[in-house]
């Protein structure tokens, strides 16, 4: 249960709203698609977001010799984690968040799953111990957030996050059959369905606007 709460809080901190958290990725090795239009510096409501290739990212360079999460593994260069994925980083309250992003195309729409790759404090030269984070703690962040990605043009990207509260409401009311674990005490949940099931769900309901938190859609505008 502690895993669910921690994962939920960290993931939600990304854009400050209720997004869905999944224990499994929707993007798998065979289905991952790269899209370099994502690379660059983006801004949304005054907040900057930097997207770069995994190989070029600070988190990769840092963790190359010192892997701290199972997401980045030494010697596995031909995995989606390296060649077909991106790192999105942003700073908030003097803490730098690194998200690992992979994309998939379903029904001619692009979907992205994001997972916390690293969290560092910029005050202490990236020393994560200052945040009282341990390897064990980071392992608990191993949950994915899923969003629909719409490239309006090369300079504008719209992210529609899957609405966690809608999904949870449907699950709680016995209207949605999706494997999950819930924490009744904190009223949170995490989806535990397999990547294949997640893909099928998106394939079937990817065009259903009820699934997306339209009010909290994020529009990223390219800065550079």
């Amino acid at each position, binding site marked *: 249960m502690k895993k669910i709460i921690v994962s939920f809080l960290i993931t939600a901190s990304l854009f400050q709203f209720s997004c869905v958290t999944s224990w499994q990725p929707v993007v798998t090795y065979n289905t991952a698609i790269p899209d370099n239009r994502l690379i660059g510096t983006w801004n949304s409501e005054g907040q900057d977001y930097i997207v770069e290739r995994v190989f070029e990212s600070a988190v990769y360079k840092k963790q190359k010799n010192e892997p701290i999460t199972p997401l980045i593994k030494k010697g596995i260069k031909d995995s989606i984690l390296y060649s077909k994925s991106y790192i999105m980083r942003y700073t908030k309250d003097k803490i730098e968040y690194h998200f690992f992003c992979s994309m998939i195309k379903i029904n001619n729409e692009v979907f992205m799953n994001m997972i916390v790759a690293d969290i560092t404090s910029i005050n202490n030269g990236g020393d994560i111990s200052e945040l009282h984070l341990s390897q064990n703690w980071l392992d608990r962040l191993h949950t994915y957030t899923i969003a629909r990605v719409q490239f309006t043009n090369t300079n504008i990207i719209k992210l529609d996050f899957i609405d966690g509260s809608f999904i949870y409401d449907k699950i709680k009311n016995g*209207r*949605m*059959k*999706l*494997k999950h674990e819930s924490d009744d005490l904190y009223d949170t949940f995490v989806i535990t369905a397999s990547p294949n099931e997640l893909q*099928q*769900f998106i394939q*079937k*309901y990817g065009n259903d606007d009820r699934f997306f938190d339209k009010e909290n859609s994020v529009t990223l505008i390219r800065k550079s």
Partner: protein
Amino acid sequence: MKRKYWELNHPILRIIQHLGFWVLSFFVFLYLFKTGAKPEKIDYVYTILFQLTLLPTVYINIELLLPKLGNRKRILFYLLSLIVLIILFAWINYNFFDKWSAKVFPDYFFISYFTFREVVLFFTVYIIITMLLKLSKSWFQVSWLQKELLEKEKQKAEVELKALKAQINPHFFFNTLNSIYSMALDKDARLPGTVLQLSELMRYFIYGSKDNFISLEKELIVVNDYIALQKIRSGEQLSVQINKDGEVSEQKIAPLLLITFLENAFKHGAKGSSENTFIRLDIKVERDKLNFVVENNKGIIDEVNIGEYNGLGLENVKRQLELLYPGKHLLNIKDQPDRFTVALQLSL
């Protein structure tokens, strides 16, 4: 005929059986398909919908395809139809959950949690299970019917046996009374003794032969009495040779079986007018086997003509043997110009 509730094919029991099967199947599926630690409302809905696609598949197979095509001549056509049926409903199942359910139940969200191939496999296994259940039920029904048929055949045989006995006894007495009648005409002095022995035999026939089987020992005593009775009325010209071998203990035999053959021998041989008539009787008893041979020479019959009833005793005893010793007896009747031989081998 009104069927009883506990009979396998009674409509009410049949409905209960089918309901029981589907309820059991429902709960097995429910626990198989549940998404959380315990089944939730959506799992119930999903399981019901999943079963709804299985129902027609199962019933089309067991109520239509199997009875109409499930024989050797049409087996290939049956298998082909079964494959089409499975693929069709697996396709319906897959597409219903994968696509159509969003339109039919817009407020319920589920997908096909199995690939099409898995659904086909699932349906195939389910069809096999229900077919095996159907076949095993049919097997039970066949055994039940066989048992009922055997019971009815047994009852029929018993009725027939009673009728045969009812024919044998008067037949025997009719012949003996004819003999006594002849003795009375001859003013034979042995007549009173003969009547007395006949009285003893009647007691046995009337009271002792009600069961299907009596002890062999008793039957042989009656055989002896019967021979004695016939010897009295036949006089000195009849030679009766009796050879007995073996030990009689607990063996059982159908009553009056041997007497009927003896009666026949006396009727056709001993009472003939020719001289030096003989009857040879060989009785060999083994542990569970009886060899009985009676042989007589033929005389000129001077009995009262009994017309159409002549030979009725032998025919009756043959039928009795068929009913009481099916596959356990060997009867050989040899009718030669000068003699008549009956050889009977019985497994006791």
